[in-house]
């Protein structure tokens, strides 16, 4: 299991795909953090919830860690390396578990880089514009750790999505369509249900309080439950499906 996880981590590191995803993430977070930090009118950055909004822009890293997780599984199917992978380790549930672990570890790196960058820019914008920082230490810790945990879980969730869908384009389109469109519509129209969906669970996990989000602990449990549910579904399918 540890050996397989090391193999999976090498797969992540040994192509340029991951580097591309990381650079994309950095560019996007840089852009969004600078835009909201510098262009938002000062009165809209004073409340603690406004500041949480600004300082959590880095949690967009979750989209990218999910992409990395998806790629870790779907490139194997796309390029056929799944065959040697399963020939070397025919116990598919163990391969999947190793990929989930690798997705989680990669997610931690994405979270540290992404949220670290977003927080630094947001904090610097507030300081530079002379706006008082309104979050206490506990709130700040929840924001940072919540973002980190959320982004890490998205890495594993991406592995689950990839293992269920297997088709690379399908998995990526599915992720973006759900995360950027469908879930926002769901939350906008039926917030009592939408707050249980994974993207909004991550918002709750970081201590965001606006609208109808779940409290942090419950939100964390919900996001973890999503990850486990996808992992179990992926394991059940992996055991049954033939590899062409």
């Amino acid at each position, binding site marked *: 299991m540890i050996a397989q996880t090391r193999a999976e981590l090498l797969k992540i590191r*040994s192509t340029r795909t991951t580097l591309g995803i990381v650079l994309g993430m950095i560019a996007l977070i840089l852009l969004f953090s600078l835009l909201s930090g510098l262009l938002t009118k000062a009165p809209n950055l004073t409340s603690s919830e406004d500041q949480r909004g600004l300082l959590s822009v880095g949690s967009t890293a979750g989209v990218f860690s999910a992409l990395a997780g998806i790629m870790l599984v779907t490139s194997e199917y796309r390029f056929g390396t799944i065959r040697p992978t399963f020939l070397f380790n025919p116990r598919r549930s163990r391969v999947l578990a190793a990929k989930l672990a690798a997705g989680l570890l990669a997610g931690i790196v994405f979270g540290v880089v992404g949220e670290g960058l977003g927080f630094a820019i947001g904090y610097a914008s507030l300081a530079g514009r002379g706006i008082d920082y309104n979050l206490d230490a506990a709130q700040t810790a929840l924001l940072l750790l919540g973002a980190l945990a959320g982004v890490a879980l998205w890495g594993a969730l991406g592995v689950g999505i990839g293992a269920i869908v297997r088709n690379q384009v399908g998995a990526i389109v599915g992720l973006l369509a759900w995360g950027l469109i469908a879930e926002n519509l769901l939350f906008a129209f039926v917030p009592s249900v939408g707050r249980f969906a994974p993207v909004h669970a991550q918002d709750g996990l970081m201590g965001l309080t606006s609208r109808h989000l779940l409290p942090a602990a419950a939100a964390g449990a919900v996001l973890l439950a999503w990850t486990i549910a996808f992992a179990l579904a992926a394991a059940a399918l992996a055991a049954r499906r033939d590899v062409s």
Partner: protein
Amino acid sequence: MAAPAVVSDGLSKRFGSVLAVDSLSFALAPGTITGFLGPNGAGKTTTLRMLLGLARPSSGSALVFGRPYSELDGAALQVGAVLEATDFHPGRTGRNHLRMLSRAAELPDSRVDEVLRLVELDVAADRRVKGYSLGMRQRLGLAAALLGDPELLILDEPANGLDPEGVRWLRDFLRAFAAGNRTVLISSHVLAEVAQTVDKVLIINRGKLVVESSLEQLTARVGGSVRVRTPERTKLEQALARERIEATPINDHTLVVHGASSERVGDLAFAAGVPVHELVAEGSSLEDVFLELTSEPQQ
């Protein structure tokens, strides 16, 4: 006899209404090289996928060293296999492809260097696979299969894309491999590709086993034929028919005679007073036998 390396027992695979593999039973003895032959679409790859735990049999079983592949411990140390010559991430170097596999099998990185040298790919090892020729990819696949120094090697169409030199290299390699009482199963749709390599052949057609024999037995089935050119074709045909020898006219003055030696045909022609302008013994090739065995039955 030592326990067989592979036992297939009534192995079948159904895709919808198509029975791709139909009750296939065979065993591979250690130390042998077996050619797994059949035309494209005969069910060879599907059979190999079931042997290797990638596909589940619809019925029957396939055991490798006495167990289903999916239950082998340290599978890579017992079995090496290459199913597709293209199973690489194009953006990953050859060396990293092998490293990720050696890590999964808990093999040292030094083993990666060894197999790279073995397949003569050490110079290209740090280039991305997208720049590899098909022959280099074949060798990289083989290197991956050899990482665990396995007892059984299963190769699907290994000669595809190899140049003649590569084919000879592969043949010598497999001979040396099997000499250590290790077992090889190689599939091909071209008998000639493996005829000089294998001890035994399994020929399948439409998912069914049609021949299981040693290469010598198969060669013995090869009947020679004799091509005769004569201005008096009909007269020769009649002379042959009296001796119950079968002959097929090719054109007005050429005849192909089956099941008789060139001496016999020459003597008969002389006795019948038929002038012979050309007399050629044609050894019908193994390939002809193979094609005959695997051709579609005429409806």
